[in-house]
């Protein structure tokens, strides 16, 4: 059962527990376990599932959203040779971060290459885009400093 909505009139989802927890029924060595990740959906669930399945030590990985109005996912991992599913999950998170970084680098390189077609509805305001990017960078640096 999920918690009732908050009394501020909004329909905001209130998490049942910590961001990530191990559901009952796991093996004592965590080689077979189901994780519950709060406030995540198919966006992270499917990406994680794909990356975990790319690990050769993984026997099975699958995820589900137990209910569409509960903002959480259940992620099942089963490992070969009693390896730890926690390690597999941590590794996949790291690998997905590398992947996202690689995509961003390629995208920026392609934008800077400038070999794209212009549209009929005018030219991009590239100077404005530069000012925009500078502001975003400033913000990110500030957030990184505050450890967010």
């Amino acid at each position, binding site marked *: 059962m999920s918690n009732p909505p908050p009394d501020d009139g909004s329909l905001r989802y209130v998490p049942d527990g910590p961001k990530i*927890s191990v559901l009952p*029924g796991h093996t004592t060595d965590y080689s077979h376990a189901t994780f519950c990740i709060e406030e995540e959906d198919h966006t992270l669930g499917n990406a994680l599932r794909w990356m975990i399945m790319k*690990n*050769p030590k993984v026997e099975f990985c699958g995820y589900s959203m137990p209910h569409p109005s509960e903002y959480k996912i259940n992620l099942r991992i089963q490992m070969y040779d009693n390896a730890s599913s926690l390690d597999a999950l941590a590794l996949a*998170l790291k690998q997905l971060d590398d992947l996202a970084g690689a995509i961003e680098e390629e995208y920026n390189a392609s934008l800077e290459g400038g070999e794209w077609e212009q549209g009929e509805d005018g030219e991009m305001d590239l100077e404005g885009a530069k000012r925009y990017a500078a*502001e975003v960078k400033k913000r990110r640096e500030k957030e990184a400093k505050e450890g967010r």
Partner: protein
Amino acid sequence: MPEEIHPHRLVHIASERVSHVSSTDYPGHWPGESYTWDLEFFRKSLQVDVKRLTPTTIDFDLVGTDAAIANALRRIMIGEVETIAVENVWVWQNTSVMQDEVLASRLGLVPLRINPARLESWTPNAVPTDANTISFEVQVTCTSRPFPPRGSTDPSELYENSSIYASHLRWKPVGAQAALPDWLADPPSVAKPDIVLVKLRPGQELNIEMHCVKSCGRDHAKYSPVATATYRLLPYIQILKPIPEQLQAKFMQSFSPGVMGKRRNKQEEWEVFVKDARKDTMSRNVFLYPEFEGAVKLTRVRDHFLFTIESAGQMAPNAILPEAIAVFRRKLRTVSKALDELMHPPEDAEPEVQEGGMELDA
């Protein structure tokens, strides 16, 4: 000829069905092929090509990754990239024919061109400050023009302020906002000045104050930075046997214009070739004719995504994907941190109660 594509990467398209849809790039699926994650290999095979960039849209190709990743980016662009929109409206005076709540709803939907990095995210029950709120106001009265053209029935000639546009929204700096150089270089404004909000007639008046906050499309569609964010797979067409000259026109017409081309081969005969498969809509009309049976194989490339992103106006189209990637990485960091705490609980914390752990027979 287009480059040769590994058959494992192809989604097959038949006249009444599609097959080989699911990806098979996992260890242990194909004998002799590893498919274990390898960052260096991924970097080499990954391609991101911006194809077209206009003030409103960007088209780019994302090649070499799975639908799980492409879809995650698409979902984040629609629902989780934060932008700034009108959230609270104070209607001090509204004598127009439009009800207050309808007008307020319309104001909420006006896209605002404000760099979202300037504000803190809004949290329910937060106190509005210059760090999390931007204020706009509309103060207009409709009046009759003193000397309208004789016989005119056009309201814009007869009256002043007969139509209220998005451009009537005026930014009202609060606190330190008016003193920040970034804000003065690009002051908060509406993205499209020519949106009609309401029409007034002489004597009618609007006096409205709006608070704009930062939130995401999951909260309300008005915060979504994209009008559309979609992808499709690259079509890949193989002609398996030569098409006789008398059937070539019919063959070429069963594809979208520009997909097929005609050229002379080495024997100086006309032959049909695939000129630009990207333009095909996969109509499969070619399968209607028995004479083309076995002549062509229609497929799509499973890991070649053709993205089209149309900005709703809040940010430049090229800035949306990097924002989405940043959101994705923040999600990963949050889960990583939580997992770390789960694996190595702080010393002073209560030991985690083991619920129902059991031995599995090896």
